[in-house]
């Protein structure tokens, strides 16, 4: 039964929300999660690729939510050249619907409570302080009190705006995305593929993440400021027509992926933002699941500590910001700067990265080998981007 007051209310039961709830509850806070949809994980708005090392700290690996295990990343350069990168089976393509539910279940096992079909409408304020969340549960408007609100409401990031945080992103700092899950295709279950270049996807890339040997998430992200005349759907339709003419579409999803740095403000009195809502997404790869979970684990722990010390002001909650920056936020900022430079350059960059990867023999593939090859052919920036891309997509030997 819904209590009148909780220590922490988490808005959104995606990976970041559930992990924040779990760590807050595990460390002694009373926690309520509000989920807008009928269950966590739907609708899936994600390519579903993660690394083993990224998720392993947060949940016991369960084959129920693993569609395929990835050993190879195949990069397609604009000039048609191809390079394979090997990663020892440490990547996964998830079944997000089951994965998200499992993470949420875990949070409830630590004591967090959950209401689905609970659409947050606004924050509740008393004497200029956030004291709760107003939401619509099925057909009833309700209010729940709390000391801390954790906004894990995804790319919309409405909770932050209600609190007076500017969560808007520039057009150039968002990729506008379309993804199809395709059937009746031939792909390799162990290989993720990436296509680069302005003809294929200006300022972004096309991905093929296999869910089996005959099905895959095939999607595209186009940089927002380059998508006006021809949108991501048109680019993707052309790609699918050319590469998978017999494919059928079993699932279609649209969405935005931010390619920004973490928001300037992710903490205010009585509020913290985590995951996509805080723009904690790798600006080069667009990967956000693991980053969101890492941030959420920090936020959850800080929230529990705040409850113990009865300190809910931004001064105390900024501890979350501090730890996040040290752990990943600063790296994200560097990657953002790299992305900014990279965006202004032409397709030859991608050709060079692929060329470098080609020179490295399979059994010697490592960041070090990539480094050695890259130094031979110089460009510093190119190396950094390749390194960041590879390292964040998968753990190399």
């Amino acid at each position, binding site marked *: 039964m819904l209590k009148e007051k909780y220590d922490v209310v988490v808005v959104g039961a995606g990976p970041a929300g559930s992990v924040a709830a779990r760590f807050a509850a595990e460390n002694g806070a009373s926690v309520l999660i509000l989920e807008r949809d009928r269950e966590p994980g739907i609708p899936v708005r994600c390519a579903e690729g993660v690394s083993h090392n990224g998720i392993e700290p947060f949940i016991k690996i369960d084959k129920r939510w693993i569609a395929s295990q990835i050993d190879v990343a195949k990069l397609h350069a604009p000039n048609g050249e191809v390079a394979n990168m090997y990663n020892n089976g440490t990547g996964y393509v998830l079944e997000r619907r089951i994965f998200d539910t499992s993470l949420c279940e875990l949070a409830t096992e630590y004591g967090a409570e959950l209401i689905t079909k609970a659409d947050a409408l606004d924050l509740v304020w008393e004497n200029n302080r956030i004291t709760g969340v107003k939401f619509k549960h099925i057909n009833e408007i309700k209010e729940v009190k709390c000391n801390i609100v954790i906004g894990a409401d995804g790319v*919309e990031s409405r909770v932050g705006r209600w609190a007076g945080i500017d969560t808007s992103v520039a057009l150039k700092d968002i990729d506008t995305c379309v993804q199809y899950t395709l059937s009746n295709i031939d792909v390799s279950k162990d290989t993720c593929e990436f296509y680069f270049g302005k003809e294929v996807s200006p300022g972004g890339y096309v991905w093929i993440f296999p869910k089996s040997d005959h099905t895959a998430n095939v999607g595209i992200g186009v940089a927002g400021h380059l998508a006006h005349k021809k949108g991501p759907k048109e680019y993707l339709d052309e790609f699918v027509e050319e590469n998978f003419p017999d494919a059928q579409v079993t699932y279609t999803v649209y969405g935005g992926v931010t390619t920004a740095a973490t928001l300037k403000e992710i903490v205010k009195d009585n509020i913290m933002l985590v995951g996509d809502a805080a723009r904690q997404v790798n600006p080069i790869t667009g990967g956000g699941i693991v980053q969101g979970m890492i941030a959420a684990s920090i936020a959850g722990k800080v929230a529990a500590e705040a409850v113990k010390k009865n300190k809910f002001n931004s001064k105390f909650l900024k501890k979350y910001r501090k730890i996040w920056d040290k752990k990943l936020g600063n790296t994200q900022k560097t990657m953002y700067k790299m992305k900014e430079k990279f965006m202004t350059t032409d397709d030859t960059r991608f050709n060079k990265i692929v060329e470098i990867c080609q020179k490295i023999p399979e059994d010697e593939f490592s960041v070090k080998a990539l480094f050695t090859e890259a130094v031979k052919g110089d460009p510093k920036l190119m190396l950094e981007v390749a390194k960041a891309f590879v390292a964040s997509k998968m753990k190399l030997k």
Partner: protein
Amino acid sequence: MKINRDVCDICGTCVAVCPVDAIVVSEFRVNIDNEKCTNCLNCLKACPIKAITEGDQC
């Protein structure tokens, strides 16, 4: 700005790029407040499915 609700997938991309907080997703519907809107066209450009066009919502 005008949203074609038959096309809109309620993905929230437009909300993220709106600099003046004129777009709200509420109860599984995207609404644009044309009073607040500054016609910057960010939402129209960012929409993955081109569900947004210029003009007033009918």
